[in-house]
């Protein structure tokens, strides 16, 4: 069908090209319907060439997708790891949280703050009350002004927040070659890829950058960081931390634990939320079933009733 219509259109084109001089001749030829096969073949070839050319031109214009960024600028997307705590019916592994907090304290806390986490939230999830109190007392905090208006120092309490390693952002930048180590309280929620990104970033430093890659002075190559140049050097090395439960502290083990801990820091309500979700699902399932049953119970007589109109029988004798 398409080929036939193409042929017809080229025939019209050809006739138009021939012009008015052959008007009479064309009239005669079309009426006799005897076109030579050579002309037909040429028309088919020309129309095919036009069709292919237009497709090629269209593809040249709109075909190739324009990328705003190169893959290196985009950064390597992290692989999805089978995190246990991300499953619907699983909680955080609190032993892992404890290990992760140890990694945070011994490694990350040198540069990164955890400013939204007070010691009290660690109680019962990561540490015991006594351990948390002892930890809080190791730091000093400002008191309320006393009678002379002086602000004194007091040891920390459970209600205090974990202190930041630097006084402010400017001090942090000055100490880190101009790069600001981000606060880690909400880092899992704050980065595209979440746990997978943080784990991949921590463990993804290659021994040397791939051939030809440009790494600026003071930066390190990490494929997962957008732009691949990250100011943070690799910090986790095998056996850096000694776990109290004697888990072998390989790089990936430490990265996994600290990532899970940071996920807890970002979503401390997750365990409760999942528990509440199960309750909601269980109760609403029962209530839905009950409401369906009640509806059917109430509607059964209405739906199954039958209305019959029994017309009065016509009497033979008409009443006057």
């Amino acid at each position, binding site marked *: 069908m398409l080929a036939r219509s193409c042929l017809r259109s080229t025939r019209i084109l050809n006739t138009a090209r021939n012009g008015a001089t052959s008007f009479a001749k064309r009239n005669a030829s079309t009426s006799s319907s005897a076109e030579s096969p050579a002309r037909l073949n040429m028309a088919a070839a020309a129309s095919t060439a036009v069709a292919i050319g237009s497709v090629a031109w269209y593809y040249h214009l709109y075909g190739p997708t324009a990328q705003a960024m*190169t*893959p*290196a600028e985009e950064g*390597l*997307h*992290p*692989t*999805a*790891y*089978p995190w246990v705590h991300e499953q619907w019916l699983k909680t955080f592994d609190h032993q*892992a949280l404890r290990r992760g907090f140890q990694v945070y304290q011994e490694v990350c806390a040198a540069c990164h703050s955890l400013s939204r986490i007070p010691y009290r939230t660690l*109680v*019962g*999830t990561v*540490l*015991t*009350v*006594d351990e948390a109190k002892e930890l809080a007392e190791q730091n000093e905090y400002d008191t309320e002004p006393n009678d002379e208006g002086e602000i004194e120092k007091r040891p920390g309490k459970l209600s205090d927040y974990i202190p930041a390693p630097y006084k402010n952002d400017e001090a942090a930048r000055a100490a880190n070659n101009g790069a600001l180590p981000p606060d880690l309280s909400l880092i899992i929620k704050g980065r595209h890829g979440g746990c997978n990104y943080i784990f*991949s970033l921590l*463990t*993804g430093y*290659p021994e040397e950058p*791939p*051939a*030809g*890659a*440009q790494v600026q002075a003071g930066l390190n190559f990490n*494929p997962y960081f957008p732009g*691949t140049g990250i100011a943070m050097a690799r910090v986790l090395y*095998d*056996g850096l931390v000694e776990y109290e439960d004697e*888990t*072998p*502290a*390989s*790089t*990936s*083990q430490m990265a*996994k634990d600290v990532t899970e801990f940071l996920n807890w820091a970002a979503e401390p309500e997750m365990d409760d939320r999942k*528990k509440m979700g199960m*309750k909601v699902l269980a109760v609403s399932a029962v209530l839905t079933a009950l409401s369906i049953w009640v509806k059917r119970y109430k509607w059964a007589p209405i739906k199954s009733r039958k209305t019959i109109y029994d017309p009065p029988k016509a009497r033979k004798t008409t009443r006057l």
Partner: protein
Amino acid sequence: MGIWETFTDLVDAAAPWSTAEAEAPAEESKNEKAEESKDEDSSDDAEEEEEDDEEEIVDPKETLEEECKNSKQCSPAKHHFDECVERVTKQEEDGGAKEDCVEEFFHLAHCATQCAAPKLWATLK
């Protein structure tokens, strides 16, 4: 744990008024102190053993990914990456590389991590 505890635990877990409390490490510290005082003589040996342990730790991620890179699954990516490295190092020797191997590295790393991910999670705690 008897069968009755199973039921009470279930009820506790479902009851809205239940609370979870962390257990304090009971009396371990005393025992440890006692042991430490006993083992003071042999502390040097213990330190040596610990150092040996630290050397033994091998990151399972690296070994698994190395296996994956050499597996059949990732052979196309590895082939491209190796070829690119060869080409670029040659260019650098001739003076100034015109390209880099970041994209090839990405494809290889993506393949290797994806292949190693489930095996890695099986080995990690």
